[in-house]
């Protein structure tokens, strides 16, 4: 059974269409990620699924229930980490976990959760005194206090330093190990790549691509890219004829796109050996998720346009 089913979801604020006909499913036990730039509508969808916002159209089912009805049973089974959300500042970490724990029929102990999010040293510290990263970890612990089947994480690592992010990722992966379904929103590509089983890319209120991170936008089927630097005294014309779709030289740097990765690589390395050449910065790679994402969302186009406009000013 699917944990989440969404079809034709729409949300309008007056003239503004924040979400336009979004459809997707999240299987039980899956880590599903909504990826997109800020303002694409990720949080709007997350908050509709969490029951905080009403929808203008479409069908939504979360754990078999319509979240707009707001049933208590659903809230017993769902844990939510909102984007920015305070706690009762005067209470300590331990007290908060105990207090929120009481609301649930099924619950995990404060000690266990404190250990999971590594706040052992802060158990008796008031929430007001926690750092940003510690607060975010407390948020996660509070979302897990009812031992939920489904966890919503809305941009869980925004504002983290790299080490804190890796820690958070490890914790989230540990959750997957427990069989939880996780619904994640992020604008970080590496986060989606690292954590998600499936990714849906959003742009301007629409889902424009869905799939596992490695297959997104036909990424796995795309031509590989071979890069290297031409040695001094050699030109692009002197390269052997290889099975390439495209050959581009930029100064001394060469980029070859090919759908016959092994054959082309072999041809080039054989040619280099024959002439006893060392090819600096030699690499073979598939297009990264970032390349695909930027292409899909059209962000690089916008960036370039901004740069041109800035230069013209």
């Amino acid at each position: 059974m699917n944990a989440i089913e969404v079809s034709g979801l729409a949300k309008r604020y007056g003239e503004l269409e924040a979400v336009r006909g979004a459809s997707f499913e999240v299987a039980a036990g899956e880590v599903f990620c909504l990826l997109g730039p800020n303002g694409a509508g990720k949080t709007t969808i997350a908050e509709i699924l969490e029951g905080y916002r009403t929808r203008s159209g479409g069908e939504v089912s979360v754990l078999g229930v319509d979240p707009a009805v707001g049933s208590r049973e659903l809230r017993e089974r769902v844990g939510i980490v909102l984007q920015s959300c305070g706690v009762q500042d005067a209470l300590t970490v331990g007290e908060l976990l105990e207090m929120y724990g009481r609301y649930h029929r099924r619950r995990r102990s404060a000690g266990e959760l404190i250990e999971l999010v590594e706040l052992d040293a802060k158990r008796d510290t008031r929430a007001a005194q926690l750092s940003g990263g510690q607060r975010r970890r407390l948020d996660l612990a509070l979302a897990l206090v009812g031992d939920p089947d489904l966890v919503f994480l809305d941009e869980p690592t925004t504002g983290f330093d790299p080490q804190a992010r890796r820690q958070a990722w490890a914790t989230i992966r540990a959750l997957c190990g427990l069989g939880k379904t996780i619904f994640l929103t992020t604008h970080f590509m590496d986060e989606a790549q690292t954590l998600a089983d499936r990714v849906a890319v959003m742009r301007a209120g629409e889902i424009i691509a869905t799939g596992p991170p490695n297959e997104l936008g036909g990424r796995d089927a795309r031509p590989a890219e071979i890069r290297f630097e031409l040695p001094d005294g050699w030109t692009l014309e002197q390269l052997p004829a290889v099975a390439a779709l495209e050959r581009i030289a930029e100064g001394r740097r060469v980029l070859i796109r090919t759908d016959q990765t092994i054959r082309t690589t072999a041809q080039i390395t054989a040619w280099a050996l024959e002439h006893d050449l060392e090819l600096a910065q030699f690499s073979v790679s598939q297009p990264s998720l970032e390349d695909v994402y930027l292409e899909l969302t059209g962000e690089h186009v916008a960036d370039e346009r901004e740069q041109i406009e800035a230069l013209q000013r």
Partner: protein
Amino acid sequence: MNEAPATLRRDLGLTAWQALYEQRAFWRNRARAFFAFLMPIMFLVIFASIFGKDTISTRDGLPYNDFFVPGILAYGIIATTFFNNAVSTAILRDQGVLKRMQGTPLPRWSYIGGRIASSSITTLIMTALVLLIGRLGYNVHVRGATLAGFFVALVLGSACFTTLGIGIVRYIRNADAAPAVLNFAILPLTFISGIWFVTDNQPAWLRHVAEVFPVHALADALQYAFNPATTGAGIKGNDVLVLGIWLLVGIVAMIRFLRQPLGEA
């Protein structure tokens, strides 16, 4: 079949727990506890020390203290119920705590019930302290005969200002603006409602304005119950009526605030 009463019992238990957590949080926030709790007591000591020997000629020589102790008690009830609930609710809303609570299985009435219970506990402690200081320091007290009137005023007044305090948050855009809005709503009324000084000589139109609002009704009801010359149970029907009407207004305002969706920005 047995599930509904069991759930209700469990939710009442949760409400009690919530009241305890709210109390703990309240007393840890020294600044807020000071404003809601110690201010009225400070005013009591200051005003009673300055005017304590005066009598009020327009009220048959009633000692000023017999007038002022119940007046300051009314102010204390307003501070602990109306101010305290409005400011803390506005802060909790702005910080997203209300939104977080909405995502938990705790029923909303349990949460609000717990917060109201907590502010009622604070109000009771403050009331006991004012009564004690009034009795020991200024020989002011409620006689057994008018105890009924005192309790009616205390309960009705607390309920009225608690619901109004939560309901008014709907009209407070952000927590920073809360003290300004609340003082604007209440402070002028305290001056024309006979909390700090006797208003018997103020113009009739001003008196009529004051009599519409619950500040005057609460102060007057308590002063009536405290007055040694009062005969009967100490219940003044007019004040009870005004407080009752404002309680209804408060309940409607509170429900409207609580029904507001918190997710829509």
